[in-house]
């Protein structure tokens, strides 16, 4: 039996129908044509489906869609601002951190979750935060460097804002 499901996706209110056993991944891709989160494994083992629910990274393949009623869901499509790429997207692009691109959406969301919470992570903290995202092309180094670049740039901006008196 399908139930009405209302939530916000990348700032836009949306209403759709979903079965109780449908995942958020199913609803995003099949109902709403938001295809950035990927069906990598459907068992929570790859991170390719990572999206935000109310600002927290979650595995959308393991999220029962009906439980996000009233919540704010964010995907990679929601990272751009006024036509400008998010710094993470920019760094991934410029550093070749995306090869086939299948893991990229999940990587970006996991990276954003890290930097939202911890703007100056150590390498170890980055590795832990990204531990749930697998890449079959083996592109881990460039992802690490892209995240470090964004973190470093955020540190510079903060230093400038405080008049260089960090």
């Amino acid at each position, binding site marked *: 039996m399908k139930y009405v499901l209302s939530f916000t996706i990348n700032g836009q209110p949306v209403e759709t129908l979903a079965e109780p056993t449908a995942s958020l991944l199913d609803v995003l891709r099949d109902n709403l044509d938001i295809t950035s989160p990927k069906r990598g494994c459907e068992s929570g083992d790859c991170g390719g489906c990572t999206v935000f629910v109310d600002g927290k990274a979650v595995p959308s393949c393991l999220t029962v869609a009906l439980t996000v009623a009233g919540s704010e869901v964010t995907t990679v499509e929601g990272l751009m601002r006024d036509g400008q790429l998010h710094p993470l997207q920019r760094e991934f692009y410029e550093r070749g951190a995306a090869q086939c691109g299948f893991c990229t959406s999940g990587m970006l969301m996991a990276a954003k979750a890290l930097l939202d919470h911890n703007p100056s992570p150590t390498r170890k903290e980055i590795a832990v935060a990204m531990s*749930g995202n697998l890449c079959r092309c083996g592109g881990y180094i460039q992802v690490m460097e892209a995240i470090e670049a964004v973190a470093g740039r955020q540190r510079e901006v903060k230093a400038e804002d405080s008049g260089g008196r960090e």
Partner: protein
Amino acid sequence: MPNAEYFAATELREALRLLAERGDQITVLAGGTDLAPQFNCRELRPQALLYIGKLGLNYIAADNGDLAIGAATTLEDIATSRLVSEKAPMVAQAAAEMGNPAIRNVATIGGNLVMASRAADMPPPLLALDAKLILVSQRGERVVPIGEFFKRAHKTIRLPDELLTEIRIPSVKGQTAFVRHGRRKVFSCCVASAAVRVVMDGGKCADARIVAGSMASTAIRCLGAEGVLNGKKLTSELAGEAAAQAVSECKPIDDERATAWYRRRVIKVLIERAINQARGL
């Protein structure tokens, strides 16, 4: 495909009423990280889902020296809780080593206990800490020592009309250590784990708890190994003896993660390491 129903209770008594009326048809849903894979591959087709994420069961509180953790508390909240790190560090550590950050944001301690996988990570430290579980129904409330909660893999004593609402950890005495082994350092199911607590008295071990995880149908206390330590001064030789004794008390199986042969070798190392860590070495 039969029509599944969905309920999202906002009050506990609403949830209990539903469970009293239709408990045998209802699949209780918290984080869903263990149920959803079964929905996705159509292995499980529930008749009805009862979502308990909005019942206010996500909390961590100190209550008269006990630590009270709501059953729907996420692993991430437990892993990063200062209160849990102070009062029951093994539990925070075990939670932090489960899954990955996104999974930890939604998976719950209650779900891990109720699903009762052989490889569940919450039972071993809770068993070593003599935790108690609170099961609630329209008939009332019962407090169950965690050692009595598990019957075997995937089977607990929870009745269809009951909801697990809280995990209580009594004030922890003694030193503890938890060591976990998976196929990879992170993001892999537990192959074997050791949760140890030792209470010392006058330089000798007065009360030992040695728990092995993923080594039997449920987490188990290795009573013989505990007997090796009790009443004696703890040395590394004794830790080795206790670990060897513990191996004989375990009933590991071959599965997709590891073989029984391998598990027996690993658990000996883990228990010895955990005892030495608990001693402060």
